């Protein structure tokens, strides 16, 4: 029976992975993800979860190990953050292109330097092109529900891709909050026993991951692109099925109070929750603001996004990472890509904020509003700006 209880989100996520009856966990502890794998190792040690827990010596080994166990046909789970995700970098591409249905939670955290353990999206955005499916959860309930959903998506034979489940480090991972936790029996009715399409088996040998000469590499990439794009429909179906079964329906793109909005904030992750409470507050004072949130980031839900922002005048894209010397933040770049050439496309105001644990608070949303209001009133669209920095814009510190 599902139980509503107060629990630290990391522990709820670990218990969800255990309730998914994962076969293998290979992981290395790193803040702020540590509590997830610590708890899983306890559950295995205490005999509550029948799985192999492989305490490896680095994240590079963790992901390599996950590739091995997934290739052998085991339901495989891991978790990481920041420098740990970066250390997995080369293996991430291998997991994706070998079509290994690994589920990895990423408690998003800034990359060094300076050394910073706090939350932003620089770790995950740097791995944007690894070929994994990517989902962003905004709170503990969603993060917990997404664990069985992600296993189901990854293992669907129409998909067969690894998936990263992102939620913000500390501001989600370390918060004690009420979560409805599904038990093993309930999850079993949604997530069937994993039956691999192909696996490494000494009695029926196959080769995985051979050399791809120039004659086949392009085709392999094309096949991978098709696999990621074609995962969209199964993802939508699975999200809907979860909603029907458990009463919590998740969509690839979410909207909040956008019906009559002039200015719409485009966000990802937990900061969108704080933004919702800010919107509730300022709506009373006549500010017509709403929020559109990407839950699904790969595949990019182009059609759903375009529909969600149709007719608005100004979009404020809030990025938690940027490309130094480049074209601003990754979310804004892709939003502009989706809107380019569209008739009556909204103007796009780009801000980078909430870096390395700087709170994305009401003041930050007010600053963004002021920038957008000028554009709404006919002002020019300003260049991308890193807000919240003492001393202001571009090197005046």
């Amino acid at each position, binding site marked *: 029976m599902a139980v*509503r*209880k*107060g629990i630290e989100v990391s522990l709820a996520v670990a218990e969800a992975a255990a309730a998914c009856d994962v076969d293998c966990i290979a992981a290395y502890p790193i803040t*702020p993800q540590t509590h997830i794998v610590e708890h899983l190792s306890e559950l295995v040690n205490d005999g509550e979860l029948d799985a192999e827990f492989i305490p490896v010596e680095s994240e590079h080994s963790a992901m390599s190990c996950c590739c091995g166990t997934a290739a052998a046909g085991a339901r495989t789970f891991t978790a990481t953050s920041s420098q740990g995700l970066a250390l997995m970098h080369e293996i991430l591409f291998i997991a994706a292109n070998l079509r290994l249905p690994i589920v990895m939670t990423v408690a998003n955290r800034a990359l060094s330097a300076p050394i910073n*353990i*706090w939350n932003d999206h620089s770790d995950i955005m740097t791995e944007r092109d690894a070929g994994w499916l990517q989902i962003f959860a905004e*709170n503990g309930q969603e993060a917990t529900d997404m664990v069985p959903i992600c296993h189901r998506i990854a293992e669907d034979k129409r998909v067969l891709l690894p998936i990263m489940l992102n939620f*913000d480090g*500390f*501001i*989600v991972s*370390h*918060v*004690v*909050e*009420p979560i409805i936790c599904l038990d093993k029996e309930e999850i079993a009715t949604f997530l069937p026993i994993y039956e691999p399409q192909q696996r490494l088996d000494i009695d029926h040998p196959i080769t995985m991951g051979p050399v791809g000469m120039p004659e086949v590499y392009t085709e392999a990439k094309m096949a991978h692109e098709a696999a990621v794009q074609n995962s969209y429909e199964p993802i939508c179906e699975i999200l809907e099925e979860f909603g029907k079964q458990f009463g919590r329906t998740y969509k690839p793109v979410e909207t909040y109070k956008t019906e009559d909005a002039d200015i719409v904030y485009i966000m990802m992750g*937990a*900061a969108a*929750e*704080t933004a*919702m*409470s800010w919107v509730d507050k300022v709506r009373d004072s006549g500010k017509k603001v709403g929020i559109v949130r990407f839950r699904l980031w790969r595949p990019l839900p182009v059609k759903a996004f375009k529909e969600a922002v149709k007719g608005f005048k100004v979009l404020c894209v809030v990025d938690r990472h940027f490309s130094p010397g480049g074209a601003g933040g990754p979310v804004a770049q892709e939003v502009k890509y989706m809107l380019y050439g569209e008739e009556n496309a909204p103007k796009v105001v780009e801000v980078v904020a909430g870096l390395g*644990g700087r*709170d*994305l*608070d*009401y003041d930050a949303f007010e600053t963004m509003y002021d920038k957008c209001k000028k554009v709404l009133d006919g002002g020019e669209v300003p260049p991308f700006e890193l807000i919240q920095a003492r001393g202001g814009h571009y090197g005046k510190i």
Partner: protein
Amino acid sequence: MLELRFHGRGGQGGVTSAELLALTAIAGGKFAQSFPSFGPERRGAPVKAFARISEAQIRNRTAVTTPNITVVLDPSLLTIVNTSEGLVEGGMQVVNSTHSPKALREEIGLKGKLVVVDANKIAAEEIGRVITNTTMLGALLKATGIVDKELLIEQLKKRFGRIAEGNIKAFNRAFDEAQIDG
């Protein structure tokens, strides 16, 4: 929505205080969250923890900067941390101190309604160690009906197992002995 900020020193259990309060509220059917001030935890250094309690879903995920209530677990913090910072109009501070509310106002400049208890003495006598987190919850509950007292005692039993008894005694004594001023 009520927002709380706990001031303690690393190792004194301020995070546990905030967590027990949130767990009690959730067990009572409310919405709540608790979280530490994120960062390297250093034993003995001033640390903060936060809690929010509400009848409706809580969406704000920023640190608590305008608390309705602050709880000060360690008397030595009063002169080195501004525990009144951001306290809302009509807010309350629950303080571990041997001093009177009047002295705390005049000498340290504490603001708001004050709830004062000598938690060091109570914890030393009832628990055998000067760990004041559960004691301070007793003082907090005397001054506010923020969560159900019996439900909180249930949480203490669950969390502390064989050492729960001392913690519950300390909690109850603080509930009885706390002075409320303002």
